C-alpha cells in the first residue's frame, strides 16, 4: 500500500549534487566498476551500460517479477534496488546461468515443459525458481506456487511453469546444484 499524497515538487532544484557514487560489483562472475548517477536502478545498470538485456523490466513498479536477478544467491527485483545498493555483491542474471554452451537445468526444464509462450516473464521466473530449488531440497508443488507468488505470467496459466520448476529442481539436485 502506498500513501496517497500529492506529489511534491522537486525541492532541491539547482542544489549541488555530490560526485556520482563509484560502484563495483560482480556480474555473472565478471568484475564491474564505474561511476553512475545515484538514482541508477540495478535493472538500468544491467540493461544499459552492461547491455545485459535478458533482465526484463515488465511493470517497473515491483509487482511482476520479470526483473528478478540473484544477488548473493537471493532473488531480488532489480527495478526496486539501486545499483549503488549492490556494491560488493555477486549478481547473477539470466545470461549467467548457462555454461559451456549448455543450458542450466532449470532453463532446459522450462523448454522441455513448454513453460513459456512469449517469454517475457521467463528470466525472472527461472532465476526465482533456481533460488527456490536451492533453498528447498524437498520442493513440493505448493512450495513452487508460493515461491512464484511474485512472478506474473500473462500467457501460460502457470501449470507448465510449476511442472518445469519441479523437473528443473529434481535435475539440479541430481547434478548437485544445491
Amino acid at each position, binding site marked *: *500500500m*502506498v*500513501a496517497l*499524497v500529492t*506529489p*511534491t515538487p*522537486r*525541492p*532541491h532544484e539547482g*542544489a549541488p*549534487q*555530490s560526485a556520482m*557514487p563509484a560502484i563495483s560489483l560482480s556480474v555473472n562472475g565478471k568484475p564491474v566498476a564505474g561511476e553512475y*548517477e*545515484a*538514482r541508477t*536502478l540495478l535493472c538500468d545498470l544491467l540493461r544499459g551500460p552492461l547491455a545485459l538485456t535478458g533482465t526484463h523490466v515488465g511493470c*517497473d*513498479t*515491483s*509487482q511482476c*517479477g520479470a526483473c*528478478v536477478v540473484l*544477488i548473493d544467491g*537471493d*532473488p*531480488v*527485483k532489480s527495478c*526496486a*534496488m*539501486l545499483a*549503488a*545498493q549492490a*556494491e560488493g555483491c555477486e549478481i547473477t542474471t539470466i545470461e549467467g546461468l548457462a555454461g559451456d554452451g549448455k543450458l542450466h537445468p532449470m532453463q532446459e526444464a522450462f523448454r522441455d515443459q513448454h513453460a513459456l509462450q512469449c517469454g517475457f516473464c521467463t528470466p525472472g521466473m527461472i532465476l*526465482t525458481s533456481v*533460488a*527456490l530449488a536451492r533453498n528447498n531440497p524437498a520442493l513440493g508443488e505448493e512450495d513452487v506456487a508460493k*515461491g512464484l*507468488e*511474485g*512472478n506474473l505470467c500473462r500467457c501460460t496459466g502457470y501449470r507448465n511453469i510449476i511442472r518445469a520448476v519441479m523437473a528443473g529442481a529434481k535435475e539440479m539436485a541430481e547434478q548437485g546444484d544445491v
Partner: protein
Amino acid sequence: MYEFRYHRPGTLEDAEKAFSKGDDPLFLAGGQTTLPVMKQRLASPSDLIDLVRIPELRGISLKQDTLTIGAMTCHEDVARSADVKSALPALAGLAGDIGDPAVRSRGTLGGSIANNDPAADYPAALVALGASVHTPSRVIAAQDFFTGMFETALEEGEMIVKVTFPVPEYAAYAKFPNPASRYATVGVFVARTQDGIRVAVTGAGPCVFRAGEFEKALEGDFSANALDGVSISPDGLNSDLHASAAYRANLIGVMARRAVAKLS
C-alpha cells in the same frame, strides 16, 4: 526518480551526521517501499542514507527469554532463523508470508515498522508481543511506537537499531492477504504473554490496535468458541476497493478464530 545524494555510512554516528547535513534526508533500509515511492515522485529526498553497512543494525540473537532482531534484518532471514523458529515460530511464519520471495530478500524489520503501513504485518506482532523498539538514545514500547497511519513515535533523524521481543508462552498469527500485494487485508496476532492475552489487529484500521473485547474473552477461555458473540464495530475501520469496513470487521473475528485455532 529525482537525483539525490547517496551515503553509505559505516557507523550510527556517521549516519546521524549525514542526516543532519541533508536538506531533506531519508534513511534507506531495504528500499522496498522507499524506492517505488521515489520512482513515482511521491517522495524526493535530497539525501538517501543507506544503513546497510552499520553492524549494530544487523543480526538475530536469543538470550534467556528475549529475542533480539536488528533493524536491518531482512524478512527472509527472520523467516529462516533457527532462533526465531524455536522461540517465536509465529513471527518466523509472519515474516515468511510477507510479500513474495524477492520482497523478503530486501525488505527489513526496521524499514517496515518505521514506515508503519496500516496493512503491514510486523506492527501486529510487536504490539501483541509487547516488544520494544530500540533507537540509539531510547527504548520505545511497541504500544507507544505506532501512533497513526504511516506515523510513528520516531523523532526526525532517529534510527531504529533493533527490536526486542519477550518470548511469549505461545503465539499465532493469521492474516487474510490481499491476493495481489499480500499485504494484510486483515491480520490478527494473538499471544499469551507475561501480561496476559494480547490480540493485535493490523490492516483493518488506520493503525495497528488491540482488540480488548477479544482479549477479555480469551482470558476466560482460550478457544475459538470463546469469541462467539464478540465482535468489533466497523466504525473507523478502513474501507476501500478491496474491502468495506463491515467486511474487515467481520474478518477480524475470523482471523482471530483462526489464530486461536492454530494454538488449540
